[in-house]
């Protein structure tokens, strides 16, 4: 945007296998959020190619992008981004609405995922009646509800205290253990250490890409 174009990413080349739990690290301005947005089809790269499950993601119009997001991706945000006037179960059911699933089935499925994140009895509560950790769990349940291929988490613990952060990471690790591919953008080393692979970005370039020994979050709890 604007007349001064700024190249944030200057050559990124990496693969993520199914079932991986990857942390993308870097200081602010390193391009990690831009990378995540491109992966999330919320933004498009000026050049280069991106394959998701063998599908080329290129020149998508809004309609197709929306379809792919709905089918392939689940988002977890730092600020949760729940719809404030919908209760927990309706928030979780929202991506299913855009998949065209009937209401009854939607709510059943949403309840299943709420149970999975341990918030079954909070299902009728509005977001402002939930704690930060609970909100993030609802957001995770929502991301899971559409049964995406990849979960993209942008600083999922950024707005949470340490203990709650570890709770959420424990949940994310559990989901990963069930085989879900997850990418987490973070700048906290302890969170990054809870993943299986850390990709370090600096000034739009990958400076380090290492597989690490995963630290289980429940050790800290």
């Amino acid at each position: 945007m604007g007349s001064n174009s700024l190249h944030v990413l200057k050559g990124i080349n990496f693969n993520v296998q199914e079932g991986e739990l990857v942390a993308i690290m870097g200081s602010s301005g390193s391009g990690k959020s831009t990378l995540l947005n491109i992966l999330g089809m919320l933004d498009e790269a000026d050049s280069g190619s991106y394959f998701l499950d063998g599908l080329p993601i290129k020149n998508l119009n809004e309609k197709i992008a929306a379809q792919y997001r709905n089918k392939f991706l689940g988002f977890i945000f730092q600020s949760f981004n729940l719809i404030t006037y919908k209760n927990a179960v309706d928030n979780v059911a929202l991506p299913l609405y855009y998949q065209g699933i009937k209401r009854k089935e939607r709510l059943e499925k949403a309840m299943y995922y709420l149970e999975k994140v341990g918030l079954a009895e909070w299902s009728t509560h509005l977001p402002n009646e939930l704690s930060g950790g609970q909100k993030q769990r609802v957001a995770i349940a929502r991301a899971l509800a559409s049964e995406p291929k990849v979960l993209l988490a942008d600083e999922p613990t950024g707005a949470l205290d340490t203990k709650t952060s570890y709770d959420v990471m424990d949940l994310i690790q559990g989901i990963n253990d069930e085989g879900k591919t997850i990418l987490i953008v973070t700048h906290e080393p302890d969170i990054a250490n809870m993943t299986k692979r850390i990709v370090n970005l600096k000034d739009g370039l990958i400076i380090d890409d290492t597989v690490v020994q995963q630290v289980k979050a429940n050790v800290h709890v």
Partner: protein
Amino acid sequence: MFSLERWQEMFETIAKNKLRTFLTSVSVASGIFILVLLLGVGQGMQNGIAQEFESDASNSIWVWTRSTSVEYKGLNPGRPIEMTNQDYDFINRKNEDLIEYKSSRARNWGVVVNYGTESGSYGVEGVFPEFQMVENEVMVAGRFINIRDIKERNKVAVIGNKVRMDLFKDKNKDPIGEFIRINNMLFKVVGVFAEKSEEREENRVFVPSPIAQQMFNTGQKLQGLAYTLKPEENFETAVLKSEKFVENMTDYLKEKHIIAPDDDRAIGVNNTLENAKRFYSLIFMIKAFFWWVGICTIIAGVVGVSNIMLIIVKERTKEIGIRKALGAQPMSIIGMILQEAIFVTAIAGFTGLILGLALLELAGPLIQTEFISNPSVNFNVALATVFILIFAGALAGFFPAWRAVKIKPIVALRDE
């Protein structure tokens, strides 16, 4: 667009945003409500004034003559002008297709009329049967003068209610069939008439035209003419035609009786339609004013709805971003916002419409003034304004919604 799921989603949103919905509804409903009331009162005023005019046939034209006031072709001013039966016949023949009812008037004031020992002096007027329609006389008893009376030169009289009271002191006495003396000639009373609005005009006696001319010994002379014209589709053409008729008639009379074209005194014409025209233009002004106020109200309503829509979309920018990230199609988001806007404005608009109509319906008959009668509203006009508001609301919602949808979800989400 109209799937059940969509409606469920919309009703949920509406139910959870009561204040927003309420404000939109009030601004739309009040706009329509006020418009309906204004239009209703405007219509009521028109009805009221139209009713005021109903008492006289509103398109009657009365002609009389006086003395000339302008010297013309060597003739001195102050010369008395008198119309004749020939003038009357000529005007009738010339304007056959325009005239509805017609009558000449051969009259005399202060004519002594007596019955038995009672007597009085009244205006006696020789007329034709159609005079009844021109003057809108109501028969209290008996009949008016008819064609046979004219043809057979029957000495019959139709007396006003006042005359009857004066002459027939015995209230129970039926005047029909009794003989009265007019100018010492015996006339049989065949009817009693009443005037709807003007009681002093009941102080008259009508006799067949030829008899009057004979009785007053005025030969072919006439003192006046009375006409009504055929009704027209709309008021404007009626006025136009009557003005044309009057112009042709006065032109003819002026030429025939050698009156200066610019002599406005010699021939008097009272065209009631022209009087009515003034009132109609007053009504028109009032209605125009009400329309103007009403349209301003609607514009205020449109602006209000647009404003609310802008705020709604602004407020929902983040929600739109969330929905997009979760896989909502751009059109589905625009559809959602528009459907909600249209639904709310439609319900509110019709509520205002129904409330306004109900108030007019209930309060209308209670209004006790001459100038407002039966206030009502053209339902189609009211309906059209509701649709204008709905359309305006939808339009006002569409552009910001379109823009919001165009914003990248990631930008919308950052928007706190």
